[in-house]
């Protein structure tokens, strides 16, 4: 870099640029917070949905699955599993694990109660209704 361009000029670009773009992020975040309620349908987050999310976290489902494309890539996407499989399949599936099919990837038995299974399904249903800009590309996730 040329001599005319000094270290203090570089430092000023750093502080100025960082401040500007951090403020831009804050502004965009503020706007996002205004728009989100229409896209996440938070009016439908019942105590049951909240409980479902809690059970999701307590059993670390994200350690094998993706949810809206984030998480682990070992097992199917579950953001749209409600649409793909429906509530009864989901409950029956979770209750029936593991498959013990030799050599096949396994999902543990979590011993969820009927109530917890219903909560989980409520959470997955709410998740499937988030406006994700048409992601995933198809029903397979």
């Amino acid at each position, binding site marked *: 870099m040329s001599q005319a361009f000094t270290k203090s000029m570089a430092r000023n670009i750093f502080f100025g640029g960082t401040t500007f773009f951090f403020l831009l992020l804050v502004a965009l975040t503020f706007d996002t917070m205004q728009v989100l309620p229409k896209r996440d349908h938070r009016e439908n987050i019942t105590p049951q949905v909240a409980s479902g999310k809690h059970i999701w976290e307590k059993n670390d489902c994200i350690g094998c699955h993706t949810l809206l494309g984030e998480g682990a890539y070992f097992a199917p996407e579950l953001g749209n599993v409600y649409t793909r499989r429906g509530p009864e399949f989901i409950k029956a599936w979770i209750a029936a694990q593991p498959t013990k099919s030799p050599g096949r990837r396994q999902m*543990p038995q979590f011993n969820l109660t009927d109530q917890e299974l219903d909560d989980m399904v409520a959470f997955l249903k709410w998740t499937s209704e988030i406006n*994700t800009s048409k992601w995933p590309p198809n029903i397979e996730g």
Partner: protein
Amino acid sequence: MQFQSQKVAMPYFIAAIGLFVGQILFGLIMGLQYVIGDFLFPAIPFNVARMVHTNLLIVWLLFGFMGAAYYMIPEETETELFSPKLAWLMFWVFLVAGALTILGYLLVPYASLASMTFNDAWPTMGREFLEQPLPTKLGIVVVALVFLFNISMTVLKGRKTSISLVLLMGLWGLAIFFLFSFYNPSNLVLDKYFWWWTVHLWVEGVWELILGSLLAFVLIKVTGVDREIIEKWLYMIIAMTLITGIVGMGHHYFWIGTPEYWQWFGSVFSALEPIPFFMMTIFAFNMVNRRRREHPNKAATLWALGTGTMAFLGAGVWGFLHTLAPVNFYTHGTQITAAHGHMAFYGAYVMVVLTMISYAMPMMRGRVANSGKSQIMEMWAFWLMTVSIVFITLFLTAAGILQVWLQRVSTTPLGFMAAQDQAMLFYWLREITGVVFLIGLVVYILSFFVGGETKESAAQ
């Protein structure tokens, strides 16, 4: 080594390398579970192995950063560390907390661990990379604050260089953005939105300040190039990092419920994120070419050049590959993501910590550089691990392309599990390459125990 207190970096580096071994072993377990699905089931389910693997990575990198800071700050500020005792104390606190957490993951069902650690009162667990129980998260905050206090006090009483200020900003940023891990609303979209304020603003934000600062420090030492020039580069690199990387966070806001304008902001700004990484590559090679001295530690120079190169490949090139919204629509949450994550973490953060260890460890052991024999071994380890990561990335990329094609692009899409079956060959190749990586790591560790003639560092 110019100051006695720098030596407190040694236990941090040793712990880092030890946990690194653990990380790789659990990586190999998961790699095998990808191909032999019921391997070690139900003793170690995949998700448990994964949280051990990723959390060990984060913890050992933090050990590495802290060790690097303890080594570097006294030398930069030309004064002894504020309190070596505090540094030792925090070392044990962090190590014990880390070990207990890992044991908790392995020995207690996760749901019970959550109940035992007040997760019902204040839920923070069960989110990717932030799986730690509440007490561990609080412990991380305490350790970070005490560490920052120690380092900041040292800087305050000594010489204030740009390199140490940048390091300090990076480390404070690390602690501050970790606080978002305590925010976990029931609204999944909000949860995800602010989850990235820890994860993205770490690896594509404040950690890059730490990376740049460590690299600049080692480059000054091994090349003898004028500090003014190096620090000017450093400021330009981190300026570009934050100018592109802060709003570049939008590349995670395409499909999680956030408004569609993020597709523009995220694509445009994150497409520029490779620039600072490219500058880092040019920086490293340029400084080494303009070197004013022949430092006997060739291995450290190799690691520094490797960091510049591999960070650009992993973060810059593999990041760019899937960062534009129309591409990411298809690749989001596939093996392409995994491929990028591996090369970026290794190329940037693993390698910069190993660069620092390579430079500092001989100094702390009373010599300018290790013996020729030991350095040759270390360079073998460099190549074994680096080439392995390149191939792991290539195999995961191949698996990812196949997955995207079969499961998402095809007009008759396969289900997830059926598509995975088609990628088995690449998963096997990845696992075999992982074994070569482990061999490289073993060679690396052995290189510390190889004797031979060394230069004493009395003059240093």
